[in-house]
């Protein structure tokens, strides 16, 4: 870790933007590689991805990605952006008449039928940030980067019990936001 005294201990906005493309690219690559060998439709092993991305970026690319906890927070945010970017691209492809690909997406959509999309979730997370930024970080770490309760607890300096409580409330709040949003739209 190459920190100078002046730098804040947590990743600042500038640093995030600085290494973002590298992390983004690495995560995409890892996702592709991890999944190309697997036939079943498992959920994305985001935890493994984020951890491997850290190892590769820190050691292979001579990139200053900071300490491991710093990197994990960073990677979680990057994962969120990857999901959002992708969903947005898919949406615009839909508008552009990429019918076949859209049909495929719809077919894959799971049986729950909620069909909430990542874009709506992202907006809801932005609203939640105004109320409780810590909850947003916890959501990113636990549900997007896929870290365990214990790991998340360590990263945000809180007890596992707190993490469980906070994530339950955040999840409930977000679900209500998304459901209300849909109710309004209908």
């Amino acid at each position: 870790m190459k920190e100078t005294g002046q730098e804040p201990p947590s990743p600042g906005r500038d640093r995030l933007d600085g290494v973002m493309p590298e992390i983004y690219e690495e995560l995409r690559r890892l996702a592709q590689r991890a999944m190309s060998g697997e036939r079943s439709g498992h959920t994305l092993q985001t935890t493994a991805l984020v951890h491997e991305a850290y190892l590769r970026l820190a050691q292979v690319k001579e990139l200053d990605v900071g300490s491991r906890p710093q990197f994990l927070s960073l990677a979680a945010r990057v994962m969120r952006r990857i999901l959002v970017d992708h969903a947005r691209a898919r949406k615009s492809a839909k508008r552009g008449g990429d019918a076949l690909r859209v049909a495929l997406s719809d077919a894959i959509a799971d049986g729950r039928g909620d069909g909430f999309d990542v874009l709506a979730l992202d907006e809801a997370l932005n609203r939640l940030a105004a109320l409780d930024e810590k909850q947003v970080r916890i959501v990113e770490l636990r549900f997007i980067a896929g870290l365990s309760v214990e790991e998340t607890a360590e990263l945000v300096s809180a007890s596992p019990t707190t993490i469980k409580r906070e994530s339950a409330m955040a999840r409930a709040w977000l679900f209500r936001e998304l459901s209300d949003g849909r109710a309004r739209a209908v």
Partner: protein
Amino acid sequence: MGEPEPSERWRRVKELFAAALEVSPEEREALLARASAEDAPLASEAASLLRAHEDGGLFLEDVVAFESREIIAEESGTSWVGRRIGPYEIVRPLGRGGMGFVFLARRADSEYRGDVAIKLIRGALPSEEILRRFRAERQTLANLSHPSIARLLDGGRTDDGLPYLVLEHVDGEPIDAYCESRRLPIEETLRLFRLVCDAVEHAHRHLVVHRDLKPANIFVTPDGGVKLLDFGIAKLLPGAGQEETSILTRTSERVMTPEYASPEQIRGEPVTTASDVYALGVLLYRLLAGRHPYRFPDARPSEVERVICEQEPVKPSTAVTRQPDSGGAPPEGDRGLPPSRAVSERLRRRLRGDLDNIVLKALRKEPWRRYGSVDQLSEDIRRHLEGLPVRARQDTLGYRTGKFLRRNRLAVTAAAVVVLALLAGLATTAWQARVAANHARRAEAERARADRRFNEVRQLATAFLFDFHDAIADLPGSTPARELVVARALEYLDRLSRESPGDDPVLLRELAVAYQKIGNVQGNPNNANLGDTESALASYRKALAIARPLAASHPADAQAQRVLAIILEKLADVEAVRGDIASARRDSAASLSIFRALARGASADGRARRSVAISHVKAGDLSGHPSFPNAGLPREALAHYERAAPILESLVQADPSDGGSLRYLGLVFERIGTMRLQLAQPREALTAYRRSFAIREKLAAGAAANVEARRDVAIAHERIADASRALGRPREALSGYRRSVAIMEALAAADPRNANARRSVASSYEQLGEALMEYGDLREAWSFHRRAVVLREDLAADADNVQAQRELADSLREAAGVADRRGDDPGAADLRARAERIERTVPRLAVSKGET
């Protein structure tokens, strides 16, 4: 941590929510009721969240998982399965490269029943670079037709605008897996490898370099043939209408496979067929020894580069006896298990000698030291298979630069830069080794060895920098190569000078000389140069910054003094052509005084005295010679020349075989004559010119006579004629000019392609014509001027040759003057009009001969 505190209300909702989660549903009701009594809106908020908690389930995980699966489908290409591209239906993804997906596809109509491979650019927005590369590949492949090269069948764009290629689908397995799974005997492996060579050689003959040869791109088909895939980064060689760009090593669009990339590719240097020879060498190493030639301690790009560019691979025969995991991580694909001891010993004996030499020759760091072509590599393997002696020999340090240059003057220009870069790298390494050895105070022998290596490399590098440049300087079109040579040389020097500890006078002196030579190449008018006087000045100043303190601190070191004097002299040359006569005279004078001090010194020899003479000549030219930028002081110029003459005379007397000094003496007498003529002393001028003539005639009659010597004689005739004209002796004047014409014509006839020789003929015609006109022979004057114009027109056919254009205009004006005198007014007007037309379009030269 850094977040702002949530509001008090939010905190209380949270507390209630958490408390309610901890208890049973019945207790929860009670809890909420109690809370509602206290703060109804707060309790209702918590109740709403608790309902959402019940209903939401794993919705967050689902949303993320859904989008993740979408990404996977996208990234792995499965989202394309079933789609149609043109008439083809995508069956499944075959793989993904730096550029895009490769799919297995089938023709959807009944036109063609076979499978094809479709290569598609990935992502929604292909960059211009990718599109360009794609188009290049399409063109490249379309030109290739060989049974061992995967055919290009079709190409186009999808409905979404993504470009794609339809390629022959190749069934089979990568060559390394094929050889290993069958434990193919060495002979079989070699025969297979030669099939690969045939295909690559075919591509090379069509000016296509593969650039990415590796097992994944070389398949063995079920019928035992080979197929080369993926000319994805192949580019047409320069000269086939395709510009050269350096290979990409950026992470996001990495197209190169570092394990098989040559040092020049790693460095982003020009890539040639020699790079494919290298990649084939790596492949052969893999196939024979079962492992990669290099071990990479880690995967950092800087480390990979260091290993590929600097580390010498061990012989394949040695490699087979080593543990596969020794010394760093093996690259992906290396054989997992070591062969048994007996097997590896047999293999070792089989590889030792020829095969070691062949593989290592293909793997040389310097492109020009590898096989000259893939054919030669293949041929050597054939010779080995048939028990004939092979061309490849063990690498030795006895390699001779000069021999190489003589043999390959033209072919080698492209490799120049690579060579230099390599040498620079070696030099630095050797230097560091020496410094390290010093620090560690290791055994004396070790230090001596490091020193020796350092010096060898330094000498080799210097030889290349300058011999190489000089060797190619006169080749047409070599300027870009020379510029690169110079740029590399500067890089190398700057690095060396930064790293030198500053207390080694020999190294410092060499550095100063090297900067001075660079300056010469950049812009010294007295040798082949790049016309960049600005950079030349900068280099000379760097040289001075080293040489001045060195000379000051080593007053007894004649070599250091001499280096300083030479740098000052060269600096003056360039300052003069830039019109800064004052600085030029100052530096020239400083140079002269150093040379004079050296000539007085105890160790003074003939060379030191000759240097003084030359220095006087230079100072004289700057003072007042009309053919050079000068200060308009003809008497001072004459004084300098007259001091140079006796020095040279005594040198010639002491050693009559000293042709160099004799030539200079001829030159000095010519200059004395010219100054005398300037000072209106034609009689003295004639005497000096006659002495110059006598010397030149003697030189032209000697064993070492060359074209230059004969040309000097012709010029001496002209000078005598000049002086005779000034003395009012028409017969002698005309005779001198006619002799000059005769010699110049003979020289031009002997070398019909030499434009300079014809230029001299034209000039001699003009001088004769001018004299004839003065003496009233208008008819003959007209005939010579006309002949001069005809020659000049021919020379000016090259529109870019500004000097020739300019001289044609002058020649036309002189001819017009004769036409005037002959009363041919329309002829004169026509000639002048032509001259004006040229003068309007051609920029005037900053400095041209005879003009100051």
